[in-house]
């Protein structure tokens, strides 16, 4: 059951009321041309919101949603086309399709649109979801081309590049309104669900999201399908708004228009999509009036073909140059107007079986194309103790951490986390089995709030019925960040960002915590605060800590047990006292001659 928070409900109402009011005013009090423009606006809202569900949350710009609109348009139009025209306009319709085509109502047509768009979204989503960033964007572009080529080539069903006509027109603002409201509600609710939040986290930092238990591929897939359905529904509406169309109506010009609508308001929010669409619809309507050549203030303007495209292009450039987050910024309107009450911390972050947990490194080796980064390293991290992993630069510490967390599988040997080989399970499952980690270069979900950062991790381990936000708050309490919970993560000072990363890892209820250079770049006061937090974690929660650190003073103060690596091999293991006096270790750190002297 998706999480529908109070905030999402507030958000739906905040966005729905103006749309409802607009539709009523336009239909009852305005001339017909404005009513039509309003209907068109509401259709675009559904389409752009569909795009927002995917692009806004995943951060991957989509060129494909005009393709979904095309699928929705043809999928519905085949069902609703006037039966009397079928035999003349589509004489070669395949038999199975001819049996169901024509004569149905718009809402049956809508079901057809959703079926087609949904099916295609699922099929194409499978490869697409595995791609990130620009490569994924280009794949959505490929999707648009595939849809277009297929529609043009399937002349028996679509009349090819010729106009598809005879579709009953009848989309007024009141018909478009419910679809737009459903689409907006879907997008706003999805944004705050576990999956929506997880995807926004992956947008900010994919690696950290995986380390917080997010199945990035799955979340992208879900958003792609949901967005495809919303845009497909918009396509069905547009078809019945226009009455006649051809594949080129759903190609680059439409893509370009949708994109400007999405980014003008800001693609990260649903409010931005709804607001930006309104501005662009008005602008395009004004420019289209000028396009045919007209007189402004006594000056005759020449005919200017494509003026709207130039206008839309310039809007995109201005947004990119001057306000990248769009007019509405990074937060929803409802989050600004009606901020949520403070979350109270409930729930314990103890690992369910911290005392019995085990993390064993068995003969781990790793080669990178001939370079031996690790060779036959074995040690055990014990629950309730702090194990330090030290060694000079290039000793293989980072490789070791990556091998343990399952990011870089070892070439030989195994890492057993509570008996499970971490290389054998997907990287995002390792954190859910009780292993949290932090990163050498801080990896936060920078544009999410402090609380959201931790909630992402809490979500992936929360039992049903448990409030993961309360759990996240409990984790923030441990590192003393509870008062900054609503702040964006990137606004925190450096030391606090480091502690936030630890809180995020703690929210996974780990039995073990890997800390990769937690004190790097900290001043002495921040280091002291960090040590206090780490000691608290060890004593209160019985978590086993593995700390990689260059600061040997910190290691000696904090650790119960130390493992020393040098050139990929383990050269010593023991208590801080033993390590301090170990000749091999001294030699590795400061060289042979000095050590002897």
């Amino acid at each position, binding site marked *: 059951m998706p999480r529908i928070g109070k905030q999402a409900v507030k958000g739906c109402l905040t966005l729905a009321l103006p749309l409802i009011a607009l539709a009523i005013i336009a239909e009852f009090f305005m001339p017909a041309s404005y009513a039509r423009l309003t209907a068109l606006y509401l259709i675009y809202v559904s389409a752009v919101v569909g795009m927002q569900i995917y692009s806004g949350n995943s951060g991957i710009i989509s060129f494909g949603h005009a393709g979904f609109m095309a699928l929705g348009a043809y999928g519905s139009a085949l069902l609703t086309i006037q039966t009397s025209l079928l035999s003349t306009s589509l004489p070669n319709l395949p038999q199975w399709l001819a049996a169901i085509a024509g004569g149905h109502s718009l809402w049956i047509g809508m079901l057809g649109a959703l079926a087609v768009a949904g099916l295609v979204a699922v099929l194409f989503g499978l490869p697409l979801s*595995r*791609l990130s960033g620009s*490569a994924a964007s280009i794949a959505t*572009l*490929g999707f648009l081309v595939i849809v277009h080529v297929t529609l043009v080539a399937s002349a028996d069903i679509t009349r090819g590049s010729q106009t598809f006509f005879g579709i009953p027109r009848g989309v007024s603002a009141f018909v478009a309104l419910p679809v737009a409201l459903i689409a907006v509600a879907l997008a706003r609710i999805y944004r705050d669900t576990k999956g929506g939040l997880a995807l926004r986290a992956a947008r900010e930092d994919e690696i950290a999201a995986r380390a917080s238990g997010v199945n990035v591929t799955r979340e992208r897939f879900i958003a792609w399908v949901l967005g495809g359905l919303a845009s497909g529904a918009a396509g069905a509406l547009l078809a019945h708004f226009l009455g006649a169309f051809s594949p080129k109506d759903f190609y680059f010009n439409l893509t370009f228009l949708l994109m400007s609508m999405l980014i003008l308001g800001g693609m990260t929010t649903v409010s931005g999509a709804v607001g930006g669409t309104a501005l662009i619809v008005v602008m395009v309507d004004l420019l289209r009036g000028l396009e045919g050549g007209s007189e402004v203030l006594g000056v005759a303007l020449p005919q200017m073909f494509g003026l709207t495209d130039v206008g839309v292009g310039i809007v995109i450039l201005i947004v*990119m140059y001057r306000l990248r987050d769009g007019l509405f910024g990074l937060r929803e309107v409802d989050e600004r107007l009606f901020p949520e009450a403070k979350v109270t911390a409930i729930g314990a972050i103890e690992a369910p079986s911290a005392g019995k947990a085990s993390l064993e490194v068995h003969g781990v080796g790793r080669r990178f194309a001939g370079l031996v980064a690790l060779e036959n390293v074995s040690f055990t991290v014990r629950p309730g103790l702090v194990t330090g992993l030290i060694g000079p630069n290039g000793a293989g510490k980072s490789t070791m951490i*990556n091998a343990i967390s399952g990011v870089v599988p070892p070439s030989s040997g195994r890492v057993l986390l509570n008996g499970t080989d971490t290389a054998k399970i997907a990287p995002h499952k390792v954190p859910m089995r009780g292993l949290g980690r932090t990163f050498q270069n801080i990896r936060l979900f920078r544009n999410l709030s402090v609380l959201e950062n931790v909630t992402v991790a809490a979500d992936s381990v929360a039992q049903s019925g448990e409030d993961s936000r309360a759990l996240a708050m409990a984790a923030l309490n441990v590192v003393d960040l509870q008062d900054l919970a609503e702040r964006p993560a990137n606004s925190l000072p450096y030391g606090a960002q480091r502690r936030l990363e630890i809180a995020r890892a703690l929210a996974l209820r780990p039995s073990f915590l890997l800390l990769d250079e937690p004190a790097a770049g900290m001043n002495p006061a921040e280091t002291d605060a960090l040590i206090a937090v780490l000691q608290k974690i060890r004593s209160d929660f019985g978590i086993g800590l593995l700390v990689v650190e260059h600061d040997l003073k910190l290691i000696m103060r904090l650790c119960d047990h130390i493992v020393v690596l040098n050139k990929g091999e383990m050269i010593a293991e023991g208590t801080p006292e033993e390590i301090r006096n170990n000749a091999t270790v001294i030699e590795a750190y400061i060289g042979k001659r000095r050590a002897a002297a």
Partner: protein
Amino acid sequence: MEIFLQQLLNALSLGGTYALLALGLAVVFSIIGLINFAHGELMTVTGYAVCFALIWGMPFPLAVIAGLGVAMTAALLMERVAFRPVRGASGTTLLLTSFAVSAILRVLFQNLISARPIPVSIPASLSGVVTIGPLHLGMIQLISIIVTLAMLLGLNLFLHRTIAGRAMRAAAEDFAVLRLMGLRANSVVATAFAISGLLAGVAGILWVAQRGSVDPLMGALPVLKAFIAAIIGGLGSLSGAVAGGFLLGFIEVILQAYLPESLLPYRDAFAILLVISVLLFRPQGLLARKTLVKL
């Protein structure tokens, strides 16, 4: 066998053009992370330049040189005017910027030049057919294969044998460090755009020579294909872009030759689908750049 060889040559010629375009995209992407949508408009600009140079009576070789000059200048201008303000921004921002630039340029071509195709008078000597043993090859196809190979070889030499070329390769690995080494970022980026413009120019001339006309949307389709080729090869990998370009060319030619006639109109859809399904198995592309993500 002969048919196969014939198809192989066709694929080399088509794939070569894709490879040149994909390479131009990759050179820029590897350095500033921009996927340049307006790359196609560089092709179109070149086409117009050659077209007008011929109309003004320039001999063909001079017109080609003029076209290439215009392509490089246009690429440099594009970088200076449109992309420098967003340098260093996220990939999404760069992508959208170039998308807008591309759309604006198309409308300008339509309004300032013509929305309709303008014929280009290619010298008759280029439209002949060469017969090598049993194979028949259009003169232009042959030239296009030779030019492609020459360009790839030349670029390879430039990248490996000259200081500017080495700087470019270093920039592709780590731009920040290169700047710390004291190289001027602007000149490295400008070189990348100049090369990319040159490659787009060459591809543009080959394209125009085969089609005999220029229109405002001329560059759109081949560059779309080149995008696909570039991600298949692994975005930002130069050799990957070339491999992806040839692969896409081969797939298209093979589909063209062996698809049943009823399915031929779907050729492009099949080609893109095939190529994208490669990503199911190699999500990073065929020859992904070995970027070490520092955790």
